[in-house]
């Protein structure tokens, strides 16, 4: 069998997705046997010019991690789309915006103000901010332009497949790699490397009828390890999150935070979380309802932690 050309790129990401690929351990050798790595900035020394020099469609599969936050991310997203036969949005950031997407509650001005002026650890008496172009004696230096809004990959280019997760679990990555190498890929636009059921369907915890009279935080209370965390009043996004990660968080004693994104048929994970969680609150009186939901101080960031740029409303209106 001919080797495939594989690329992996990080845009606005933490690097965890790349590490997750390495976490397939010795199977990485099987990957190297099946694929030529043609571009992988974190592991292999290829430059952007090398990608630009490729003929269009030269790369068989690109695993694109990270959201699109600046002009460099956008350039590479468009470039890799052109050069790749199959483009995979890999991990929560490329899939729905991910953790960098939380910045959509602010704009560039506010972020720069915080980072370069007002944060307690910043000493910047001259008030210098990064400029896209700076003249120095040797010539002109350029850095990418920072955008107001973080966007998921499919806002800019056509995406063939989505692999959810923050990061995707190594065994799911291996399943995806095998599917790619063997050419047995599902219809375009599918979410691969995950199941079609919700977390709750796959969760080991005991579930009864849910009646919530108050919410607790994992930081200040200890959940009992046999019963559904949501029943105990801990916010868990299991009902509105796609399964396939082997419920790793729940097995580790914490509630699901929703990184695998919405299950099939759900448009907006945060909206669905409101629907699911509000309906099991045990209260029929407006004042009592207010008292209980006051214990969820930040519904947007709790219910849409990994998906604000991919949600229906995309960003905060400022």
């Amino acid at each position, binding site marked *: 069998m001919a080797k495939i050309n594989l690329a992996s790129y990080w845009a606005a990401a933490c690097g965890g997705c790349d590490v997750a690929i390495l976490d397939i351990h010795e199977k990485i050798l099987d990957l190297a046997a099946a694929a030529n790595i043609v571009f992988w900035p974190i592991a292999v020394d290829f430059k952007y010019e090398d990608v630009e020099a490729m003929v269009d469609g030269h790369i068989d599969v690109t695993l694109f991690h990270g959201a699109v936050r600046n002009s460099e991310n956008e350039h590479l997203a468009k470039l890799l789309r052109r050069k790749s036969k199959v483009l995979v949005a890999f991990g929560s950031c490329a899939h729905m915006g991910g953790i960098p997407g939380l910045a959509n509650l602010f704009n560039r001005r506010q972020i720069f103000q915080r980072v370069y002026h007002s944060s307690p650890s910043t000493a910047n008496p001259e008030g210098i901010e990064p400029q896209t172009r700076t003249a120095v004696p040797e010539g002109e230096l350029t850095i990418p332009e920072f955008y107001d809004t973080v966007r998921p990959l499919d806002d800019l280019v056509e995406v063939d497949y989505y692999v959810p997760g923050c990061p995707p679990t190594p065994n799911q990555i291996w399943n995806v790699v095998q599917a790619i190498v063997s050419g047995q890929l599902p219809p375009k636009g599918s979410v691969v490397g995950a199941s*079609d059921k919700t977390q709750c369907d796959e969760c080991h915890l005991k579930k009864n009828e849910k009646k919530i009279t108050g919410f607790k935080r994992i930081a200040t209370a200890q959940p009992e390890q046999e019963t559904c965390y949501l029943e105990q009043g801990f916010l868990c996004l299991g009902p509105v999150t796609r399964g396939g990660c082997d419920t790793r968080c729940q097995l580790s004693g914490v509630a699901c935070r929703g990184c695998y994104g919405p299950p099939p048929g759900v448009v907006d994970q945060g909206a669905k979380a409101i629907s699911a969680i509000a309906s099991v609150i045990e209260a*029929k009186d407006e004042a009592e309802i207010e008292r209980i*939901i006051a214990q969820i101080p930040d519904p947007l960031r709790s219910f849409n932690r990994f998906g604000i740029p991919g949600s229906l409303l995309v960003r905060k209106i400022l």
Partner: protein
Amino acid sequence: MTFEPKIVGILCNWCSYTGADLAGTARIKYAPNVRMMRVMCSGRVDPTFVMKAFAEGADGVLVAGCHPGDCHYIDGNYKTMRRMALLKKMLAEYGIEPGRFRLEWVSASEGDRWAKVVNQITEDVRKLGPAKFETKKSKRRIPVPAA
């Protein structure tokens, strides 16, 4: 040109829609700004509907159902009460002014109340001006489930 608010109204079949119907048959004059959508119960109103309305250009959204205790399906409107309270909080975090979204109870016999509620939200939204969403520009495709 003066700004005419576009408001999406989601009404329950048994009380509010019938109440709006009564306002019509009683020939009550009220603002024409609410585009009405009938659902069987206000408990059917998924928060997604409200967000989608805003994302697709609504300046305001009005959800109306039976008065608490009067739900045709016993407690559908209590679910709505809880969901919309939580949704209101999330919409505020998205920067949507509280005046743009309302949950109201209107019974089948309250045609005049319906007219009042519509006039009220129309005026509130008119004062706030057009909603400043940019979501229309995004070309998002919703991922299809795996085969």
